């Protein structure tokens, strides 16, 4: 099993979700985060005073998938989240030691 963590632009979330559903991805966890990479921060003005805003709002998606579909999920995710501009984000792939369905106690791929 793989845990795919993707940090993407907030405006791309709906597109990503729609692109992943036909692949059999049964669920995901989404959180609102802040971050920066090459995009860097920017300057905002309040009342003539400049403020450095270092962090940019992003969306983090976490999906646990069986090994067989991991490659396809990653490439689909990458295509749907891509705008071609700096700040598109990154995808990290982790190995999962185990997964458990809380309601039934199923483990492993059965739990995904």
């Amino acid at each position, binding site marked *: 099993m793989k845990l795919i963590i993707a940090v993407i632009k907030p405006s791309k979330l709906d597109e990503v979700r729609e692109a992943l559903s036909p692949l059999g991805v049964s669920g995901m966890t989404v959180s609102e985060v802040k971050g920066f990479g090459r995009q860097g921060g920017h300057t905002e*003005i309040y*009342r*003539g*005073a400049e*403020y*450095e805003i270092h962090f940019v709002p992003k969306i983090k998606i976490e999906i646990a998938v069986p090994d067989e579909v991991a490659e396809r999920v990653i490439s689909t995710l990458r295509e749907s989240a891509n705008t071609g501009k700096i700040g598109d984000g990154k995808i990290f792939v982790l190995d999962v030691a185990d997964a458990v369905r809380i309601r039934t106690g199923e483990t492993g791929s059965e739990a995904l």
Partner: protein
Amino acid sequence: MTNLRLSFTLVLLAGLLSVGFGGDAFAQEASKISGADTAWIMTATALVLFMTMPGLALFYGGLVRSRSVLSVLMHCSAICCLMSVLWLIVGYSLAFGDGGAANAWIGGFGKAFLSGVGTDAASGTIPEIVFFAFQMTFAIITPALIVGAYVERITFPAVLLFSGLWLLIVYVPVTHWIWGGGWLADMGVMDFAGGLVVHLTAGISALVIARMLGPRRGFPREVSPPHNPGMVMIGAAMLWVGWFGFNGGSALGANGGAGMAITVTHISAAVASLTWMTIEWMKYGKPSLVGFVTGTIAGLATITPASGFVGPVGALVLGVMASIICYVLVGLVKNALKIDDSLDVFAVHGVGGLTGTIMTAFLAAPSMGGLGFAKDGMTMGSQLYVQIVGALATAAIALIGSIVILMIVKAITPLRVNEEDETEGLDITSHGERGYNL
């Protein structure tokens, strides 16, 4: 006798005595009182209180970080209450009472605890108790304005101690000089609703305390933007509405003069808002809401001293000048003087009040649509001289008074919270509360 019968008897006796002794005087006083004037000033009193509670509180609250919003609301609330009590005990008497031989400089203690001022005493065409209450709301908002200079880093005891001493050492004397029959009033200084008494005193003191306290962590480039610009606008709008009482009520009557005062107040606010909006639009391509309402306040502060003396076209002029001058000063204080007057109290209130005070000398002229100078025979030149003297004297006592007060306060309690508490936010560290439990 039972307690109830005893109390009833005492009250009856007191009532009879007051009617008996005050009889003729009561009839005389009553005939001077205008119901219309009284009703308006009572309303104005409520409007001006509304400016602090919660207008100014929200205006400042929205401008600070979310973790310090409660501390700002607390400062305004506590100052409101403390100043009210001090005003009753001794403030009103020293500001508006008769100081005898020293009356050019300060009033006396004759009306401490409002002694002698019951329901019958008159002040012009309104009951004196109403005048007392109206002026109290001014005594409340003036030290509350200074809050903007020391947000996010001052200790709460220092706020209370500083504000209390400041009322008595700076506000009360200046009020007496200009409105209480003191030397500046004799000279003919024209300050209709507090350009000097309220805005310049607060503005100068703000600069002093900001300097002596030191800047916020991260000033100037790393400070946080306003946590709730919406709250700022709501507060500014409340200030705008309340200002109708501030300037309109200063006419001390329900008449055309008051009507003109509220009109010019509104025009100045509107024009100043549009002007600030235009400046930001041209400079940054995007006019901000926070900037827009800052222009509003600049316009309101600037028209304050002039509101009873100028006409609507004068208000147009003042509104434009207000935003241009205050906008420049905001940058100057931050970038050139490098003083962290966090919410721009000096640049907006101090400079605005000063601009309006000086411009009154010109715009009060009948040729400019104004209502005339302080005394017969005065000219723009002589009025200008008097306005400048008034401004310098006000600035001097505010400057020196604030320095002395801060030295006293520093000796009693720390002025500034430690770095960790400042970073964590004053709400939780000074008041044990969180503004938002989401």
